[in-house]
């Protein structure tokens, strides 16, 4: 187990190194400097700014300096939000995205598994068909259609939930449901397909022959095995939720990291942009490692040692 984690730890460092390098040089390719305004800055002031933000000197030197700063956990200063460091900005906005993503993650995995198992247990009934039709709809609709639609129904017509914003528990419902909808549907489909396959196996017949109740057979015996494909989807799910939350945050005007990310692309705010990308990737790679370890615990047939 330790060897497995060590091996993946090394892979993690390599991946992050590639991500950092790629992001750094991509940002450098972007035209226009971070201090370009309508009026050109006097040369000496621009030079001072470049020095302050460590954007002077040859490119390779800048790159290695940046790597050095990263190793010390310093994501540098934002060039748009003057005098605020990227660490500070992310420190404020990431928890917001994290809470939203976390709730959506629970809805998607919990709700998806439950719906999928239920549909599989009642195959060929109207419950199964309705659930799968709804799932297909939810997969096909982009979140910026589902979101405004939910707002139109629950916030404007029924007036039971707020339109957007951040700070109340009620305000979390619509955004997290919008964010979770397509993935709940995807997981429901995944669980259903895998459950149907598991239900044809011999040990399920044995369990039924023993006289166990149908609920016990399905939710205890079958689900344990049927859940495995879902577990391996949890890593990509986290990636999708992170990306998806950028759109959802902008629909519901939530002050998460997504908004800073989009603005940093538009503002050529290089270090903020690089900071968001690097932090996102690091979180994801760590999350995937956790999922792999979890997978090994759930399915003893899979060995982490080789």
């Amino acid at each position, binding site marked *: 187990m330790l060897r497995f984690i060590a091996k993946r730890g090394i*892979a993690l460092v390599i*991946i992050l190194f590639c*991500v950092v390098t*790629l*992001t750094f040089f*991509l*940002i450098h*390719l*972007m*035209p226009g400097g971070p201090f370009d305004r309508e009026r050109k800055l006097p040369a000496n002031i621009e030079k001072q700014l470049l020095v302050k933000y460590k954007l002077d000197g040859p490119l390779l030197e800048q790159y290695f300096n940046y790597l050095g700063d990263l190793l010390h956990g310093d994501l540098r200063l934002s060039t748009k939000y003057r005098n605020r460091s990227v660490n500070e900005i992310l420190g404020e906005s990431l928890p917001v995205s994290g809470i939203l993503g976390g709730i959506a993650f629970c809805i998607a995995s919990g709700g998806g598994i439950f719906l999928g198992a239920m549909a599989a247990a009642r195959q060929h009934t109207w419950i199964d068909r309705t659930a799968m039709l709804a799932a*297909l*709809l939810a*997969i*096909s*609709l*982009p979140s*910026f*259609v589902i979101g*405004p*639609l939910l707002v*139109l129904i629950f916030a*404007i017509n029924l007036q039971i939930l707020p*339109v957007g914003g951040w700070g109340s528990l009620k305000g979390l419902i619509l955004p997290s449901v919008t964010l979770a909808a397509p993935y709940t549907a995807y997981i429901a489909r995944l669980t259903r397909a895998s459950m149907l396959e598991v239900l044809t196996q011999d040990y399920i017949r044995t369990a039924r022959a023993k006289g166990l109740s149908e609920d016990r057979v399905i939710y205890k015996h079958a689900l344990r095995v049927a859940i495995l494909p879902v577990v391996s989807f949890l*890593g*990509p799910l986290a*990636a*999708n939720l*992170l*990306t998806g939350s*950028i*759109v959802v945050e*902008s*629909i519901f005007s939530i002050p998460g990291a997504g908004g800073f*990310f*989009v603005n940093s*692309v*538009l503002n050529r705010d290089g270090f903020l*942009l690089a900071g*968001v*990308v690097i932090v*996102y*990737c690091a979180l*994801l*790679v760590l*999350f*995937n490692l956790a999922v792999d370890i979890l997978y090994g615990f759930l399915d003893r047939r899979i060995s982490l040692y080789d």
Partner: protein
Amino acid sequence: MTEPRSPWLKLRKNPAAVVSAIVLACMALAAILGPMLAPDGAGEVTRNSFLPPSSQHLFGTDLNGRDLLYRVLLGARISLLVGVIGASISFVVGIIYGMIAGYLGGRVDSVMMRLVDVLYSIPRLIFLLVLISALDPLLRRQMEMQGLQEFVGYSKIILLIVSLGFTEWLTMARIIRGQVLSLKSQQFVLAARSIGQNHTNIILRHLLPNLVGVALVYLTLTVPAVVLDESFLSFLGTGIQAPLASWGLLLSDAAQVINPVKGYWWLLVFPAIAMSLTLVALNFLGDGLRDAFDPRQRK
């Protein structure tokens, strides 16, 4: 009832798939012919902003007084174009990658699949946003230098299609690799090898024909994924830009002007219906194809 033997027959017995195919054909026809048949000036900016749907403008007009029906059909053109070409690129990349990994097997296979796992877990749309905004001005300048002025307006679409194509191939590669792994140990491949056929021959004449069905299934399922990705990028302002239109861009425009006080509902509803209808139909058709073609699903 006995199962029809041919996958195509099986597909024809699936009502959802047949209806979806018809819907898609209609949508494609409307996208191709619609903007051509439209009266002159339908896409021009006029003073008639935010007219509700009427017999004059069936879908109403937008902020700049353009006919929304015309814009939706124009959007269909670009969204479908991006979807189909992007998915085709991912189709080719995925097949080649998956076949190499599956056919060579062993260490090469595990390294190649490990790479796929890694790419899976990277938030690719975030990278696409950065990539496109970095490369677009470069491509533009290059085009101007090469004297391709008339194509400059399309540089973003080209980038969008190519980069979406090169990032959507992961699922395809996984599926194809799995298929190749199970096919290559089957007797007809062993037989081909035992009579001394070379690898190229085995791959092209024995494996590839057996992969086409499954690959087509996932091609159909990749198109909606690419259309969704494009709409996401356009929504965030990195994709298609006016005066061109895509569904994502129309929806993004709508989301900006819609609010509880001014109910310009048609701006949101019509593009949303067109896009959802197409995506649902593509997914239904893909599911139908999968039921018909994918041997693992055949019971």
